[in-house]
């Protein structure tokens, strides 16, 4: 009892310190995070439901929603397959240059989104490397959906891999080796042993990747050309309407992206909790 009391005292900050630190952190969370979140919806509904619905059923808004869904539909599966393949190679095998490869996968994180867009303009733009060839063959990449997809693939490249690599490294090879030595094929082992073990982490990576694919602004802004109804994604539509001084329109479109962000956060918390539970339940049987 005595030591317990001592412990408490040792770890407790003085009351005034505690209260002022709590005040600072709640004020920061409130002012920087909660207030903006609430403001988006207040602004979106500032002129009522009717106006909100009108803004979102505008043909340009609908086209932007469709394009955003289409880009995510193309990018998320590719990034997921890449994440699985790279995690299998990096977490399951030893080879030279492994840490270099891991660094390269993370590279898009340290590149400005604007630069990410620029490099595709340098490759496929009118004055780019393949510019002339593309024009001769009547293929449009920049200022078209293909360019938006390429820029989004660049930006989202590390998202699934980053979640899976540490997870699979922590898991170790033993369970898969056991399955194989009992006669399971490679694919069966992957579907029956690997995938169930990493499913929450994989979903988590997919959710984050999807949020970024739908929300990317800088890179997409450079390659899209902002053609209303054609190459405007939802974030670009937000910018367009905002710059036209249509605040309700901008915040209505923004509210959709905010719902996406909130759903992402809720799923993230849930998936992290599931992953934690899974690895907790696995731990005792291993040791």
């Amino acid at each position, binding site marked *: 009892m005595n030591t317990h009391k001592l412990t408490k005292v040792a770890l407790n900050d003085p009351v005034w310190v505690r209260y002022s*630190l709590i005040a600072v952190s709640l004020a920061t969370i409130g002012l*920087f995070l909660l207030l*903006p979140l609430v*403001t988006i919806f207040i602004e979106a509904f500032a002129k009522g439901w009717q106006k909100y619905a009108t803004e979102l059923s505008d043909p340009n808004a609908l086209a932007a929603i469709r394009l955003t869904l289409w880009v995510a539909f193309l990018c998320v599966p590719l990034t997921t397959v890449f994440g699985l*393949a790279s995690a299998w190679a990096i977490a399951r095998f030893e080879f030279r240059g492994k840490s270099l490869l891991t660094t390269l996968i993370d590279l898009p994180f340290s*590149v400005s989104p604007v630069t990410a867009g620029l490099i595709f303009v340098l490759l496929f733009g009118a004055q780019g490397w393949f510019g002339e060839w593309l024009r001769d063959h009547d293929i449009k990449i920049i200022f078209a959906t293909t360019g938006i997809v390429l820029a989004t693939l660049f930006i989202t490249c590390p998202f699934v891999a980053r979640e899976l690599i540490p997870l699979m490294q922590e898991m170790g090879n033993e369970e898969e080796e056991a399955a194989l*030595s009992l006669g399971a094929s490679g694919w069966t082992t992957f579907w029956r042993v690997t995938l169930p073990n990493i499913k929450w982490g994989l979903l988590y990576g997919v959710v*984050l990747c999807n949020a970024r694919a*739908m*929300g990317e602004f800088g890179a997409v802004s450079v390659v899209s050309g902002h053609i209303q109804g054609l190459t405007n994604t939802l974030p670009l539509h937000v910018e367009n309407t905002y710059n036209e001084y249509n605040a309700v329109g901008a915040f209505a479109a923004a509210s959709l992206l905010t719902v996406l962000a909130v759903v992402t956060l809720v799923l993230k918390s849930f998936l992290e909790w599931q992953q934690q539970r899974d690895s907790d339940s696995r731990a005792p049987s291993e040791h």
Partner: protein
Amino acid sequence: MVNKTNILPGFKPALGFTLLYLALVVLIPLSTLVFKTLAPDSLLTWQGYLDIISNERVQAAFRVSFLAALLAAAIALVLGFVIAWTLVRYSLPAKRFFDAIIDLPFALPTAVAGIVLASLYAPNGLIGKPLTELGFKVAFTPAGIVVALIFIGLPFVVRTIEPVLQELDTSMEEAASSMGASRWQIFQRIIFPNVFPAALTGFAMAFARGVGEYGSVIFIAGNMPYVSEIVPLLIITKLEQYDYAGATALALTMLLVSFALLLIINVVQMLLRRRTSEMLAPLASVVAITP
């Protein structure tokens, strides 16, 4: 750990696909930035590069971008540490909710963050109005850029410091306390040195992200040349004027400076870790992100 006879299949196809995808999607596109600059028939000569970079408006943009990112990362570091500390050490109601919402800037598209911060801090906005009455103008000034970058950088700091505080063995603090150390001494001698490398990582990540940030900044910055114009915006401006050489020069410079800074911070971290390798073992996983 050592596994010489790895019986798992699929190494070659997995690695092959990884390398091919990475080359096509990331490496080849990114390398154009370098080749565009170095190629003999390039748009850019060394003299041309120097002319672009020494332009006054360009230099002002670099100053604005780097100083704002530096200041914002420093403020995010302090606020982020306090948030991580309160979330780990104190009992709060609705802690899970607060913890989850920290990631909002990761999940919220930057354009959305941009317009909402701009309308909150505008002279007639909810926060901007009282601030304007007190004589502070935030939106459409460099201060607005700092506000947006604090928003963007905050989760990087909290998420790197939080796990270290959770892993920190409280028995050291108990021992120090029982030997008569004050709470402040414990912070200086035990908590601070343990958290420092993670804090540095969080700071570096917030800074690197801040320098390149575009979407959340342009709406609140005002984008006045020489005053509140950031480098990413200037790149886009040059592109819109079909000045490919100028845009490439700026992008390459920004990339190189960011890499150099991250490299320096990584080296500092390695030296720190070597000095206190046992204490900081749990950190290894956190440091991985910087190139």
